[in-house]
């Protein structure tokens, strides 16, 4: 093969490879990308229907509840403005604690309970997932105002 053809072959292969990869990547992206939704957005109904997504916030103090001896447990995740009940069956990560940041992966059921199939808590307690930090930061200021105004405008769960 002559150098010129050779180069064309190389360029051609790269272009084809990249094109195929891009196409399939975007396709796969649609199927398996996970959207991160804040608790307030969930209460406003802004979440992907009929598919899994992630929701994050703090585990509300005093909200963790479990039947003795059962693997099933429930807690509230809060972004300091709205709360969302989460139900999970299984083993929790080591750093899951009340008052700590948490990310849950799963779907919302008909009665508005988030059925999680995966719970993530970060390995360093000083560290918080940026999405969680952002969604909290948006509402820290409002919290004091909300206290004065009375109940916030979260839709009833």
């Amino acid at each position, binding site marked *: 093969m002559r150098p010129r053809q050779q180069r064309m072959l190389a360029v051609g292969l790269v272009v084809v490879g990249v094109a195929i990869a891009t196409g399939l990547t975007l396709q796969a992206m649609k199927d398996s*990308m*996970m959207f991160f939704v804040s608790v307030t957005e969930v209460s406003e109904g802004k979440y992907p229907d009929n598919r899994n997504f992630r929701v994050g916030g703090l585990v509300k103090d005093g909200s963790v509840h479990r039947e003795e001896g*059962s693997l099933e447990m429930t807690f509230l995740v809060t972004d300091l403005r709205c709360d969302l009940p989460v139900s999970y069956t299984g083993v929790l990560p080591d750093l899951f604690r009340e008052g700590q940041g948490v990310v849950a992966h799963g779907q919302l059921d008909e009665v508005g309970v988030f059925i999680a199939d995966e719970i993530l808590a970060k390995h360093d307690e000083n560290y918080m997932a940026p999405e969680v930090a952002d969604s909290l930061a948006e509402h820290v200021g409002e919290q004091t105002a909300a206290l004065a105004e009375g109940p916030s405008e979260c839709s009833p769960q």
Partner: protein
Amino acid sequence: MIPEIGHFALILALALAILQGVLPMVGAHRNDAAMMSTARTAAVGQLVFVIVAYACLTWAFLQNDFSVAYVANHSQLALPTMYKVAAVWGGHEGSVLLWILLLVGWTVAVGRYSRSLPDSFVARVIGVLGLLSVGFLLFALLTSNPFDRLANPPADGADLNPLLQDPGMAIHPPMLYIGYVGFSVAFAFAIAAMISGKLDKEWIRWTRPWTTMAWIFLTLGIALGSWWAYYELGWGGWWFWDPVENASFMPWLIGTALIHSLAVAEKRGLFKSWTLMLAISAFSLSLLGTFLVRSGIIVSVHAFATDPARGVFILSFLGVVILSALILFAWRAPSLDSDAGFSANSRETFLLLNNVLLVVATIVVFYGTLAPLLYEVLDIGKISVGAPWFNKVFLLPMLPLVFLVGIGMHTTWRSHKGSLLTGRLLIPAVASVVLGVLIPGVLYGRFGVMVSVGVIAALWVISTSIIEPLRSWRRAEGAARITPAVLGMSVAHMGVGLFILGVTIVSAFNVETDMSMRPGETVEVSGHTFELRDLRQVQGPNFTAVEGVIDIRKEGEFIAEVHPQKRQYLVQKNWMTEAGIEVHWNKDLFIALGEQLGNNTWSVRIQYKPMIRFIWFGALVMALGGLIAVTDRRYRSTATAAEKAAVVAAEPA
């Protein structure tokens, strides 16, 4: 006093790094032998001061000097001595110091084992390494000084993160860093070649063992990290596609491509500018990895306390390095290429395909890692790209690559005579397909398309890589004595096959169950019964733990007793899961305690992981293959050098 000596030593090292970065470069430009000869001396001097600084920090740890902020944050009186030594790189500041130490270590090794190369070339390589060192020393001194003092020292330290108190974790970062830093040699080589405006065969040959050594360490470092995550994070996964894992995986993929393209560049004088580009990319991706970890812009389990100043510094440094390298590349690289041709049916074509596919794989990982950031910047929503996406997309370039490996190994340079798939490849091809279809069903009781594809790929790579060593061993007709280079290649590819086998089987037939158990209870998982005999309190040096005593039986016969623990570390108060793992060559039984569900009942996660050992064993075999290749005679004047170099680099760690 000692910490101040360390701080001062770092400043002196910076001064020497500046000398090392400037004088040899100017000397090489003016052809001034005296100035060029400063290169090696400055590097040795710099190494001495960095060692002093490193020793001072280690000393502060051993002396429990909590007036040093870094020590106060990463150590504690009761921390075992071994972990005090390892804690030096257990946080951000210390790991930067380790990085610098390794970089200067590699530089001195380069200086020592490069006598066969022209002085001006060596001067430029060392000069570039000096400039990199300047960047990292400035980074340490300006944003991450490990010797900063506290005005009010605490009585006791905050302890090392319990996750890091583990032998596997103690050696994982140095391994990884030796690999990262090792690519700086290939980078410096590429820059020096472009400045010199020529690229001799001998120079390329000289670079090969260095690149391979860096790759070996990176392979081992990544494998260790994976192994550690498996038993220490407590949940039995071995790869999470976490951004920081990806950050180490991208240089590995490009480094693998680089090793292959260097072969073509040396043997045939082709792909030269492409090779330079890969050398630049491998190191740039190593830097990018550092940036991702330190800046905290991306969600990751690798939590370093974030500091915007650090992120900005690394990003600027990255910008300067990449931009200047690319400008130089655009200006100089085109003149380096040769016009030799090759046939479509030749080893060159296969290595070209290897490179294209590996680069595509890198782009996939790169995109998946940075997409969340991209979405956020473009304000089109918050997403996270998880394992399901990577598992799917990553296979696209990798599957064809794996099948091509088997053929490519048996092609000849320039033009291959004869057809590719007949002859000696026929038997492995048929055998892999037959066994690949049968094995999943016969051994694991379930047939499946994807699992068969995986097993076929694995057996195909393993069987085709055995052919050459086997022919040589049996003195087959026409077979020459195998060279270490070819043997190394065969062994490394066999490692790839073993790895794929492990990944395929464990992904397809892994069983995971969460149970609620109380003492005396028995559960059955994949043909094994697990009896929780007892729960007891255990006292460690800096933790207390609840320990389960679990008996494992198979068909009534006792196999093993394992002791999973739930630890609470006394200083940081956090909980840690220590899994109980029963290891066999072909399966792991993995038991982890979850949490107390009240009334002496605990949640327990039990997993059956067939063939998972093959994942790390495969990586080990890949690294072994690299090591064998490095010993090839034709690197003798330089290769023994690289081995010693690695030893030099590894020693202080």
